[in-house]
């Protein structure tokens, strides 16, 4: 069972991701903000973090950087989930150590395939 953390301040987005990926294969955790996300990653060591860029308490980029800087949390694959698709944001995400990105609005089917591909590759 893979552990997966979805970080987004919008309840609807979290519900969508949960409904999309809900199965026996995944344990899904939710966080509304950056601080909560970091503490959950430390506690549960999720395999994948779907991280929104615009968080209420901090930028998703900063959260990613913090996760990748900490040896305890570095192992998690981080995919940025962003409404912004400008290249400068993507460069920023890459520089912060993100492993990939996914732009909103997104197709749940595409997200499911993407997640399965990530886990497939990591096995």
């Amino acid at each position, binding site marked *: 069972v893979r552990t997966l953390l979805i970080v987004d*301040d*919008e309840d*609807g*987005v979290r*519900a*969508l991701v949960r*409904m*999309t990926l809900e199965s026996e294969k995944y344990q899904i955790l939710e966080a*509304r*903000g950056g601080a909560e996300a970091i503490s959950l990653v430390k506690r549960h060591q999720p395999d994948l973090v779907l991280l929104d860029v*615009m968080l*209420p*308490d901090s930028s998703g980029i900063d959260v990613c950087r913090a996760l990748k800087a900490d040896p305890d949390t570095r192992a998690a694959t981080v995919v940025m989930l962003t*409404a912004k698709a400008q290249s400068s944001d993507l460069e920023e995400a890459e520089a912060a150590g993100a492993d990939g990105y996914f732009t*909103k*609005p*997104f*197709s*749940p*089917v595409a997200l499911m395939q993407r997640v399965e591909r990530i886990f497939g590759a990591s096995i």
Partner: protein
Amino acid sequence: MSEKRDPRQGDGAASTWRSPGLGQARVRRLIVVVIVALSGLVVLVAVLGTEQILSARSSLRNQIRNGELTSARLAASAVSSAVSSRVEILQNLAVQPGSANLVEPGQAVNLAAALVAIERLYPQFSNIAVLSPSGALLSEAPSWPATAEVVSTRRASKTGVLRSGQRYVTGAFVQPDGELAVTVATVLRGADGSIVGVLQGAVPVSSISEAVGGTRLNGGAILYLVDQHGHILTGHGVGANSSHSSTGPIRRALSGQSGTTTATLPGLQGGRLVAYVPVSSLGWAVIVENSQSAIEGPVASMTERLAAIGGAVLLFAIAAAVGLWFLLRQLGRQRDEVTAIFASVGEGVATVDASGQVLKINPALEQICGCFGGSALGRPWWETFVMYDERGSVIGWEETVVARAIRTRDVVASRGFTLSLLTKDGRRTPVAVTASPLVIDRLVPSGAVVVVRDVSGEREVDQLKTSLVSTVSHELRTPLTLIQGFSELLLVRKDLDSARSHEALAQVHASSQRLGRLIDDLLSVSRIESGRLTIEAAPIDLKEAVTEVVSSFALEDDHRFVTDIPSDLGAVVADRDKTVQVLTNLLSNAVKYSPSGSEVRVAARCAGNHAEVGITDHGIGVPTSEAAGVFEKFSRSDRSEVRQVGGTGLGLYITKNLVELQGGQLWMRSEEGRGSTFTFTLPLEMAMAGTEAK
């Protein structure tokens, strides 16, 4: 915009600004100088003209007198030789061999015949006589009656010649025929050389005057011949009876002097221009005189010519002064106009030379950079106008818009609103700069004209636009993501149970409502800002409206709603739909920012002419630092409690505008962590009626 420039600095700026121009005062000064110079020219011409006339008069006078002098000299010499030739005739007779015999008594008949012959030969003589040394008349031809004049003249003649021993010429006397004449005499000598008699000849003055008849005289001039006694022989006042030897020029000439003078002459009116010359061999004098008026004619014509020249010069001077005045005034006006335009341009304008030195800057630019009183003039552009790029680094001179315009000889403008200017008080003002090459001489680059615009407002709008795009795109994308995502799940996932399907549909529904609200809000803002939002005010029952809105909230929300509205509040004059929107927005905020189950209170009361409605929650409140911006467009707090709740930052802006458009006010009282009260007012119908009745 309320902070206007310091008036002192303003005056300073204005004065330095005007100084380079050719002002009205300068033009006036210049005109005065020109007029004074031209008046001086006219005075000079008048003075020189007068001097010219005076000197012309004097030179003409001298010229006339010198002419007279020459005439007088010629006449004197002619008279002298005329008289001498007659004396020589007598002398020649007297030295003939045997001429002494003329005195012999026996020779009387011969003598008479000889004398007749002489008389015939020399008609110049009117009488020829031989006298004994004692004075007895020995013979004469023709025979004259012995008048007293004749006798005394012969005696004077004999005495004179005996004394001189050679020849003698008497003064004038009146001949028996009434004509004026003079007597010339010489001696007759015997063989031993002793004087044996006197040979006399009477010469009519008319025959002597003939000798001077050829002397050329200036028009109007008169010649006088005067004998040794001062008797005038020719000219005015002829006569042997009156002597004029005391008259100045006559006296001087008789005493041997010659010259010219201005004098009065006997029997003539006014001052005369006189030349006098002695006839030295005779002791006589020649006087030539002319009236002073002889010079008036030429001088008058010369005066006329000079006056005409002077008048022409004066006219020219006046025309030149007037022309110059118009020209200078025109030039001055043009310059003043250009200066005024430059000074009045609302944007900052400066000119720089090819090396980047600031030549002129206008008050608007002084205002922007804060360098008043011409302190920027003559200094390099890059020292006065320090510019920063978007990263905050100072832009080097070569990279500035101004240097590029000078280099490329093309118009160069800064892009966007990223450029900042360092002002004298240390602030950085966003500016836009456009520089155009200044071309006065086509071959030589003369510098550049620089327009500097304060774009603080534009930059603010730009930032607002960025935040609008960011907010709106976020607010649009989230519901769109949910609608697309959940509908896709509903379409693709056949394994969803009815509870999940219902949840997905509910999410789609809520998201479309959210999109609808966002679009409504944006449309409201657009209408408010373009002034197209119309209010249809009518008396409405406020209590009923509040109850309706609160009930609809109470249905869907678990807050505790309390309403406190007096039943005698009366109707307010408002747009019912807008009032419902106001109440909905404020209640929605109260619900959003306060914990579930807490109390939300709507209380109304009558306050003067208005009904006052307060909506109080016990939520997160608004910190003092953010209170001022709460009603501004797109103002969203950065606090996580706020950001956790979606919103565009438009709600309170729209609400405030809706209230104010209906003649009310909206304000907030809040304490961070304790809750907020938003209060709005609407005009009461009673009050409106009262006002109208008055």
